[in-house]
């Protein structure tokens, strides 16, 4: 009895120690955002990358803020996020080697088809946000320091509405609801509470629980959403797999990787637009 138990334990111990050796065989950890994962982009491009290079990419999908924090702590080899100013800060602080622009998609304002704020069809996101506040229509905010959350706050500032200040002054009404969760959860909440929500188009196109939700505002230049990719600095974290991580970056900004991104479609709609070579992206 005891010997059998011992064998079982030894077996588990052996399998536990053997697993990392196998896993370390050409794999990298990429900290990325919920939008790239939930939209299915990685499911489309990573098998192509693996077929070409044999490198297994393990994606940890978090908000942009959390993904950068994961990189800062040295727990990822590459970060793939969408908040240019935060990315530039990440590199300036020495945590990242260099930022490469990869692709863009756009944000859209989603709302209930009853459209309580009366903004459907508008192409002016700033005016739409002002109207939502004026009519105190429910608005769902990610509230999770993600790239989408950062973009949302920047748009409110453009509308001369300082959410952070109103919050600290305790004059922010209950129409503005911070949920502190990912894009899908925010859409689920908007769907359940007939609220407006800022979403990235990729997640929206692949989102299945739409209920009464539809696109209220789209097509405004200010809704542009740029993605960048950065190798975590091996000088800060020697465990970073520099060669493999750079191989991933080189591939994703190469014509082949860029084509793979452009080829990803849902119901014939392209989700992300590669622009690695666009100046200033």
């Amino acid at each position, binding site marked *: 009895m005891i010997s059998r138990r011992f064998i079982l*334990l030894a077996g*588990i111990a052996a399998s*536990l120690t053997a*697993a*990392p050796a196998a*896993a370390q065989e050409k794999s990298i*950890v990429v900290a990325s955002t*919920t939008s790239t*994962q*939930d939209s*299915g982009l*990685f*499911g489309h491009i990573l098998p192509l990358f693996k077929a070409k290079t044999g490198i297994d990419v*393990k*994606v*940890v*999908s978090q908000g942009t803020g959390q993904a950068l924090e994961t990189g*800062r*702590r*040295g*727990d990822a080899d590459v970060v793939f996020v969408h908040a240019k100013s935060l990315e530039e800060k990440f590199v300036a602080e020495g945590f990242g080697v260099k930022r490469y622009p990869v692709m863009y998609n756009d944000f859209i304002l989603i709302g209930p088809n009853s459209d309580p704020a009366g903004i459907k069809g508008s192409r002016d996101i700033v005016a739409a946000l002002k109207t939502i506040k004026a009519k105190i229509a429910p608005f769902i905010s990610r509230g999770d320091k993600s790239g989408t959350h950062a973009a949302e706050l920047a748009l409110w500032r453009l509308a001369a509405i300082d959410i952070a200040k109103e919050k600290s002054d305790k004059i922010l009404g209950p129409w503005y609801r911070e949920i502190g*969760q*990912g*894009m*899908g*959860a925010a*859409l*689920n909440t908007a*769907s359940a509470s007939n609220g407006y929500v800022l979403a990235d188009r990729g997640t929206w196109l*692949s*989102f*299945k*629980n*739409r209920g009464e939700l539809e696109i209220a505002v789209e097509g405004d230049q200010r809704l542009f959403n740029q993605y960048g990719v950065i190798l975590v600095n091996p000088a800060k*974290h020697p*465990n970073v797999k520099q060669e493999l991580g750079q191989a991933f970056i080189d591939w994703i900004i190469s014509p082949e990787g860029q084509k793979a991104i452009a080829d990803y479609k849902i119901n014939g709609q392209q989700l992300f637009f590669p622009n690695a070579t666009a100046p200033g992206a």
Partner: protein
Amino acid sequence: MPENASALQLVLSGDPALYAIVRLSLVVSLSAALFATLIGVPFGALIALNRFPGREAVVVVLNALMGLPPVVVGLAVYLLLSRSGPLGELGILFTPQAMIVAQTILIAPIIAALARQTLEDLWNEYRDELAAMDVGPLGRIATLIWDARFSLVTALLAGFGRAAAEVGAVIIVGGNIDGFTRTMTTAIALETSKGDLPLAIGLGMVLLAIVILVNALAWGTRSIGQRVAG
């Protein structure tokens, strides 16, 4: 997992991605239950059989730790195993090993607390007999654990159930990596966030069925064991 498939279709078609997820859930939670038993039962026995100052406080804290929030355990283990943390050298963050560590910490107090109660009750029954037989401290613990083994299985199952059901710890330390650290619960959380509520609830049913199956197996083993042991 393929798009637009229901959980039932995935089960019936033997979808390899689903089976990999089920396998990982079982490996992680059963390993955690086993390790937590190896830690928790002796610990519970020590408290059950010994009288020392502050013992009541230890019992209260141990019972309270049964309610450890998974997300707190996950965060603590994350900070421990992160490359910037004290055990970063191990490099096991975002691996199944990290998930086993987190779940072991989560459920060890549950198993220890339940074992403590079980063994203490038995100890009250056996105390005079064992004293008369002049059995040493280790012998007493061994005797009690052996005689309480069937009840202790229930403690192990309680721990396993908690581990298999939690999402807060494994999603933080495992990272919900497709094909590597994705478990039933993190897959359910992911499908919910993708708005695929039917698939999410379907996966929930599959998880429930697995937990029931594991408990049925344990119950069957226990019944046979009791019959054989008399």
